[in-house]
């Protein structure tokens, strides 16, 4: 069996990749994908803790997997609304480069 720590390292790396993507990507769709990667990193960690709960706490616990299912549903809704926002953005600003769209600033 793969040790739990490997899964946790994998999930942290996924989280870091996603956060790096959100902070540096210029294309709106890439930002959207990076947010999805971050949400899925959290899901991996939830499922890991749930799968190893017998070793960790002495009793099997499925709440983490339920949490992951719920958050996948949320992620799907978030993609839908995100794509809609970027579509409107493209119509108004002729671009989805998130660094070029800055009317609002001090």
């Amino acid at each position: 069996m793969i040790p739990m720590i490997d899964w946790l390292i994998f999930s942290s790396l996924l989280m870091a990749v996603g956060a790096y993507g959100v902070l540096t990507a210029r294309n709106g769709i890439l930002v959207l994908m990076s947010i999805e990667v971050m949400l899925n990193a959290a899901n991996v960690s939830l499922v890991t803790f749930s799968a190893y709960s017998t070793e960790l706490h002495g009793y099997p616990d499925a709440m983490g997997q339920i949490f992951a299912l719920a958050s996948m549903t949320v992620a799907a809704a978030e993609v839908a609304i995100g794509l809609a926002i970027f579509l409107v953005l493209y119509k108004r600003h002729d671009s989805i480069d998130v660094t070029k769209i800055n009317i609002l600033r001090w």
Partner: protein
Amino acid sequence: MAETATAAEYFGVLMPQILLLIFALLCPALDLWLKMRRGIAYWVIIGLTIVGVMEILALIPETQNLVPFLFWEQPPETSIFAVNAFSMVFTVVFVFVGALVAFVSPDYIKRERNHGEYYALLLIAVTGMSFVATAGDLIVIFLGLEIAGISSYALTGFQKSVKRSTEAAMKYFIVGGFSSAISLFGMSLLYGAGGTTNLTELGAMGAEYGPIVLLGIAMLIIGLGFKIAAVPFHMWAPDVYEGAPTSITALLAAASKKMGIAALFKIFIVALLAYKAQWDLAIGIIAILTMTVGNLVAIQQNSVKRMLAYSSIAQAGYILIALPVWAVYDPSSPELVRISEYAVAGGILHVITHAAMKSGAFFVILALTVRGFGENLKDFDGLSKRAPFLALAMAIFVLSLAGIPPLAGFYSKFVLFSAAIFGSSEPGGASWLVWLAIAGILNSALSLFYYARIIKSMYIHNPQSQDRIKVPPLIQAAIVIAMIVTVFIGLYPEPFLEGALEAARALNGLLPIG
């Protein structure tokens, strides 16, 4: 092991949320089939009023038996909902702000299409917020945050033809998604350490899971810090508040931010009880930074909408004082328990007063926008001669935000700062808490500087023209209601403080015993 709740019990305690959803789902139908415009707003106001009255009846001891189904007998360890005075007070605040937004919307968005969707999303956002306040479980908190978040992204971009609005929606979406993902990761770490997602059971977890919970605390501070726009996670807020339709700005500042506060109270006070020595200083520093930066940057603003956005960042800093002061909680000393309740009550009271005065201030801007004015400070020149009522209302709201005595804002700030002073002077308390009170008082003085600029421009400068400004009656009604609440809480704070204390006791009641 207690018995599990029956389906009828779940329907009973979730009646407010179920009603809100039914009203929400019928909004598009009213728009599509009955071609209603203004009618949908009345429909939304009726729904929100029913729910608000229900929750207020449940809060007053004499009338509690009128709504027996709202009372939840389940012990918090076995239940994913915690229906108590805390959830009721917060739901009343969200419903109140939602209803005021419904009052001002018909005149503000009359040139846009898709009214049905607008009101439906408004109600769904309020439902999500009340779920956060009702949550007894990390899953419910996360889902509530997301329900409210996703509907407010769409509402922010509601004015599809306005460049500012679409840009604000994009920024809000990116920041919102980023912060939800980070808070979800933080919640997963708490789940890993505690082996449960129930808040009360998490609170019983020992202090032996140091590093993993510390990482979780850091992630949750970042994630929820973005939600409540605490410094240094505040950069998105002024842009989004300025670009969003003004009615939605009021919703974001007065209700969405309070949802983040409710989640913060629930997670840090209940679930992270054993780690309070690890988070109190961090949140104290964030509170001081938040109020100082918010006020300092607000001074330089020329757009009143943006100025109020920064002022609402500063107000979140005042509310955050409640958390480190709560951390003096020690079940063995009744005096410290009382101080911790008083601090959280101060936070909740400031949530209530801030909801009334901040939404009122945004509605004054909205009333001017409807008549074709801009949002800059010079558009307010001589307002007292052209629209005496609007000028008086704005003066009351900003004076209350600054904390001038007979108004609501003074009283809630007084409770917060005095709680910090009690917490520092009581034996067993933490002496550094007094700095929170000092920072708060200095910041109130600092904030008076820019609030006074608005009043000076309205009452001393000469108007650009002499024409009277007529305000549509529904907007006027919303401003009057916000004004009455602001003045009334200032004059008769006792029932509101009693309600806030009741809510704080209910929150402490979720803590694991022993």
